[in-house]
């Protein structure tokens, strides 16, 4: 027989001035299963809690109803208190007679009646409470960072510095990402490589960081603290354990290939390092272009390598490891503007280039050693048109969103042209100029003072006539059509999620929005977390942003990871779903409605008509279940139930007022 204790709180006069608490206590004392009912002036106070503890001991209570303020206020307080008593902390129900009764009603008689009803419902529910126990899951103190751009590097370094092991996975042969392609960074104009390559080197040499380049994640199972991740190591054809990176192979390789790192503005070899400061500083073979791998002829590198590092038989490899936390820093790509903008020539004019191509042109380690030359003929352009929002803020052609960084790097490009080419002219076509950032507006002002001409309007067409690129558009400030004859046009194109990033994220249980940017758990309050506990986001994987924001977010993600890895064990809420397997039909309805993929259909041995058979039933992963109860409402039999809010408990609450 249950021995329920009911405590009615006065909350000073907050409750007692409207609700006749003594009458409620009297009524509660008459309810079935109630052994003890009393009032208390301030139940949440130390003395109030002591009184409860005493009552529990004295009356041998085995469950408790507290009628007080909202459970959202003190449920945790009282659960904590119960851990010091003989009652299980989950054998507690709270009747909300303050926020949902005394504060919202004025008629004392009716408010008292309602309070009695609410206590009655809580008593009915508590009678069906079961002791629940938090379980703990061990935390594997190791972090996986996916993506080796500046976001991934920063997150990896922060976690590694705190003393935890990090594996940094990058699909390219070197870490560095997009930042290392850039020449200078706005608004300070410090050299991008000068500030990013030391970070790369640090990551490459850090004792706590394991770099895995030319790798991709192919599968993720498990849950927070315990993710089993399968990493696919693509064949490199060069043994990186023995290679010293002497570079002889690359020098002698006879096959020349378009260099994508230089945005197709130069050639590289079929055995290559991504760029001179690559980390690791060792080459790989491009299997698509190597003549040996394609047709079995050549093998020059293999003959020349003094250490015999070349292995044409290299195969892909799968490595499975356990991680406690995952950071997704999968970055961005620029849109294929040629497809979206045939009116800009659709790629047929060599001197219409993207902003990233310009970065390579102006970069001292780029194909022109930093001299701004037209890709078409190598001439120095005197008049340059910069077009902003190519694909951004243009839902009819490409993306509806703003790519955030372009306003600033457009100003930077204008500044660089004016600085490097004497007597040059720069025209910037824009929709708006957005410069929210420290020193940003000042930089934009300076660029205009330097002589950049800003024209408010979109460019409607670019065509070549008489060796010039004619950029037609409208100057919306004066309402006139304008045409600028340019030697070169730089298109500041929209960012889009890196190809394959949504698939990679889906592997880790993270969803993407309609544009493919990965979705954070809450846009304001949980910006680096995801719906999957233990998986975090940072950098442009989450949405377009510039380098300062990217790095800040990477450190934020690292802080979240550290908060997790600092724990030896995670306490899991016991209020999760459980399956009554023998009754489960295996229809999979619960699996369909689960928001966190905590339910899987598994084969279990079973008995059927006296025979041993294998049946498929639902199984809940207690590490993943978030306790929403959608499964429970979906199940027709009622064989999957949410502990703490069971079908029986809710039915009892509904029935409570009508029981004789």
């Amino acid at each position: 027989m249950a021995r329920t204790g009911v405590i009615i709180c006065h909350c000073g006069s907050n409750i007692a001035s409207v609700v006749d608490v003594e009458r409620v206590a009297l009524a509660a004392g008459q309810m079935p299963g109630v052994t003890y009912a009393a009032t208390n002036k301030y139940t949440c106070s130390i003395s109030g809690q002591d009184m409860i503890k005493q009552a529990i001991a004295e009356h041998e209570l085995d469950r408790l109803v507290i009628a007080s303020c909202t459970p959202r206020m003190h449920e945790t307080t009282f659960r904590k208190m119960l851990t010091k008593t003989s009652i299980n902390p989950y054998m507690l129900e709270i009747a909300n007679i303050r926020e949902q009764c005394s504060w919202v009603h004025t008629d004392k008689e009716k408010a008292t009646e309602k309070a009695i009803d609410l206590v009655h419902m809580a008593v009915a529910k508590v009678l069906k409470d079961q002791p629940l126990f938090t379980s703990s899951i061990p935390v594997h103190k190791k972090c996986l960072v996916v993506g080796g751009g500046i976001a991934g590097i920063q997150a990896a370094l922060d976690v590694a510095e705190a003393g935890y092991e990090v594996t940094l996975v990058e699909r390219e042969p070197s870490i560095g990402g997009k930042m290392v392609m850039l020449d200078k960074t706005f608004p300070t104009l410090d050299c991008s490589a000068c500030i990013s390559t030391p970070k790369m080197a640090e990551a490459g040499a850090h004792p706590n960081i394991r770099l895995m380049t030319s790798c991709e994640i192919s599968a993720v199972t498990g849950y927070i603290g315990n993710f089993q991740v399968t990493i696919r190591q693509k064949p490199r054809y060069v043994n990186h354990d023995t290679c010293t990176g002497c570079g002889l192979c690359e020098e002698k390789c006879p096959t020349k290939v378009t260099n994508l790192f230089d945005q197709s503005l130069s050639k590289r070899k079929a055995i290559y390092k991504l760029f001179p400061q690559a980390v690791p500083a060792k080459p790989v073979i491009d299997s698509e272009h190597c003549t040996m791998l394609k047709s079995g002829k050549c093998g020059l590198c293999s003959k020349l390598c003094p250490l015999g590092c070349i292995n044409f038989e290299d195969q892909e490899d799968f490595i499975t490891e356990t991680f406690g936390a995952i950071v997704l820093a999968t970055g961005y790509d620029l849109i294929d503007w040629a497809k979206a903008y045939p009116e800009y020539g659709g790629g047929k004019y060599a001197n219409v280039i993207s902003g990233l191509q310009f970065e390579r042109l102006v970069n001292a380690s780029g194909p022109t050693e930093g001299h701004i030359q037209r890709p078409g003929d190598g001439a120095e352009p005197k008049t340059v048109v910069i077009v902003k929002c190519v694909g951004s803020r243009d839902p009819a052609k490409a993306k509806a969103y703003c790519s955030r960084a372009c306003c600033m790097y457009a100003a930077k490009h204008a500044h660089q042209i004016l600085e490097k080419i004497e007597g040059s002219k720069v025209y910037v076509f824009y929709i708006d100029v957005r410069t929210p950032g420290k020193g940003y507006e000042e930089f934009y002002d300076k660029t205009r003072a330097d002589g950049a001409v800003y024209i408010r309007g979109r460019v409607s067409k670019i065509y070549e006539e008489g060796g010039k690129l004619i950029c037609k558009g409208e100057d919306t400030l004066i309402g006139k059509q304008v045409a600028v004859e340019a030697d070169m046009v730089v298109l500041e194109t929209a960012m889009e999620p890196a190809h394959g990033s949504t698939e990679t994220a889906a592997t880790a249980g993270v969803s993407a929005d309609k544009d493919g940017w990965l979705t954070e758990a809450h846009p304001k309050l949980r910006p680096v977390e995801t719906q999957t506990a233990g998986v975090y986001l940072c950098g442009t994987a989450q949405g377009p942003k510039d380098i300062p924001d990217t790095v800040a977010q990477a450190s934020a993600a690292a802080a979240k990871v550290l908060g997790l890895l600092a724990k030896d064990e995670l306490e899991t809420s016991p209020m999760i779903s459980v399956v009554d397997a023998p009754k489960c039909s295996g229809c999979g309805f619960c699996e369909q409605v689960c928001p966190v993929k905590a339910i899987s259909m598994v084969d279990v041995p079973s008995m059927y008509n006296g025979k041993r058979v294998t049946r498929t039933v639902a199984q809940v992963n207690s590490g993943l279940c978030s306790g929403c109860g959608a499964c429970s409402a979906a199940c027709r039999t009622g064989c999957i139930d949410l502990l703490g809010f069971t079908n029986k408990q809710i039915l009892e609450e509904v029935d409570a007022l009508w029981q004789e």
Partner: protein
Amino acid sequence: MARIDAENWEPKILAFCCNWCTYTGADLAGLNRMKYPDNIRIVRVPCSGRVNPQFILRGFQKGYDGVLVCGCHPGDCHYTSGNYFTRRRFLLMKRLLEYAGIETGRFQARWISGAEAAKFRDTVLKVTEEIRALGPNHRMKEADDHE
């Protein structure tokens, strides 16, 4: 629970409120000392997606004159998708209840966020009045059936 005679009849309304939005909104109404009729009895659930439509039938069966299901606005579910399933379930259930002969208005669903204390108050006011206008519910009700 004392049976109330017809003259002093007051509607009793059962409300299922999700912990993260509507229950919080109801708490906020209290915090702001808003006033609304005392006819409502709230059952706290983690998510509106937890509400099995059979609970609604049970509410009428036992004697509630009206039943309300409340959750976060579509798109704001604490668990991402719970209320989208809620919406489907109750679009269907509402029509089934009406087809079964339960008067329109006895069952209602609303999206009320944690900040919409005033909407919570207004909803309770409106629903209470609508159900008062319909009078005591005798359909699908246990006590009547036994008579």
